[in-house]
């Protein structure tokens, strides 16, 4: 589809006229919002122009207010700076050196440790008949029964099957999705093209956390092994999905998809 066809497609769209009521309501709402706005003192464009002009004409000519344009001002400035430096040096020499502070901090630490030791020694030892509380999690009763009682031979095969079925039944917050750029279709096998083979292959894909196909199974065959094989090969080799997520974290999952081989699509 080229640009001209797209333009024609949009041009052919019949857009219904807006209702008068909707237009009136929109205008009323807009006017109400407009009335709430404080009027501008001057349009922004004019304001911007004034700033630009002022900057262009006067920036290099005017001296800033704080310029030191006299000898006295410079002298006072130098004197102030020298005085500040001297004050800092004296302060460091007399009372603000960090040495004493460090000593004080050490004392505090030592005292605190000693107090803590005393506190630890105070509480009596636990009674000898102390029994630890039961754990929060209690296994379901059915599980205990299966473990204790001697089970029939076929019960051994049932228990692991249930344990395996649990993750499959797990609810996924977000299912996997094909990528936004689409999936590249499999190449039509040349032999199938010659023989006119067509059909739909349903695939079950096991996607890892990255969305890549780790395993592909043919759920429903197209009736032609060549077509099934082409779909599986393409799925494993080239497809990458947006992975399933659970609580925001990508997880591996199964995903079903069907591809229909039709000879009019064949390259």
């Amino acid at each position, binding site marked *: *589809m*080229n*640009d001209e066809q*797209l*333009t024609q*497609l*949009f*041009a*052919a*769209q*019949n*857009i*219904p006229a*807006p*209702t008068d009521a*909707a*237009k009136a*309501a*929109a*205008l009323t*709402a*807009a*006017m109400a*919002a*407009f*009335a*709430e*706005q*404080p*009027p*501008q003192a*001057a*349009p*922004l*464009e004019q304001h*911007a122009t004034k700033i630009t002009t002022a900057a262009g004409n006067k920036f290099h000519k005017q001296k800033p207010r704080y310029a030191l344009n006299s000898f006295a001002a410079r002298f006072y400035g130098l004197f102030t700076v020298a005085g500040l430096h001297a004050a800092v040096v004296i302060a460091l020499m007399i009372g603000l050196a960090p040495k004493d502070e460090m000593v004080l901090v050490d004392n505090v630490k030592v005292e605190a440790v000693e107090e803590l030791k005393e506190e630890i020694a105070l509480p009596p030892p636990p009674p000898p008949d102390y029994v630890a509380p039961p754990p929060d999690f209690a296994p379901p009763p059915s599980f205990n029964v299966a473990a204790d009682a001697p089970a029939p031979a076929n019960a051994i095969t049932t228990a692991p099957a249930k344990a395996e079925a649990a993750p499959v039944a797990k609810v996924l917050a977000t299912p996997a999705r*094909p990528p*936004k*750029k*689409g*999936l590249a*279709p499999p190449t039509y096998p040349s032999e199938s093209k010659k023989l006119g083979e067509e059909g*739909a292959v*349903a695939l079950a894909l096991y996607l890892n956390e990255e969305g890549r196909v780790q395993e592909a199974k043919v759920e429903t065959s197209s009736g032609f092994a060549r077509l099934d094989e082409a779909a599986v090969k393409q799925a494993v080799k080239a497809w990458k999905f947006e992975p399933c997520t659970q609580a925001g974290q990508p997880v591996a999952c199964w995903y*079903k*998809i*069907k*591809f*229909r081989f*039709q000879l*009019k*699509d064949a390259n």
Partner: protein
Amino acid sequence: MQDDATLIRAAQSGNSQAFSELMSRYYTTLYRFAYRWCGNRVEAEDITQQACIKLARSIGQFRFEAAFNSWLYRLVINCAKDWQNSQRRHRGEELLPAAEDAADGQPDGAAGIYLQQVLRQLERMGEHYKETALLVFAEGMSHAEAASVLQVKESTVSWRLHEIRKQLQLLQRTQPGSWEVEP
């Protein structure tokens, strides 16, 4: 009849009559774009109303650096996106034009169905593609004009259109329903 710049300056100074005149002048432009975006008359009217209110609140910020038209399109695109996000939050699914409106607003037969598919594909492609396609193909803007509305480089618009063409060709090629995701 006063030109846009005079009306805008008057509106910025608080002249409500000038603002009302501006609104009347551009209401249909805003509505038309909103309709193309959502494909539904009632929703388009809501989006347009939001755009009008936004315009009232922000007309003082227009600095005459870009065309007023471009600024308006940007406004209505933002309102349409806000609407789309709120709809997604409520429905939790992909947005598609309502079926009853599709019969009213879209071209008949295969062209109508295909237009819906095109819009759906544009939404799937992610942010920015739909607005770029609508500005260029539906509103007839040049790449430079669309770039000015979207505040991106002209080359970005060209690249997006190139991607759109590629995706639509793929859509056309696989149209007989090759892919079916099973429930």
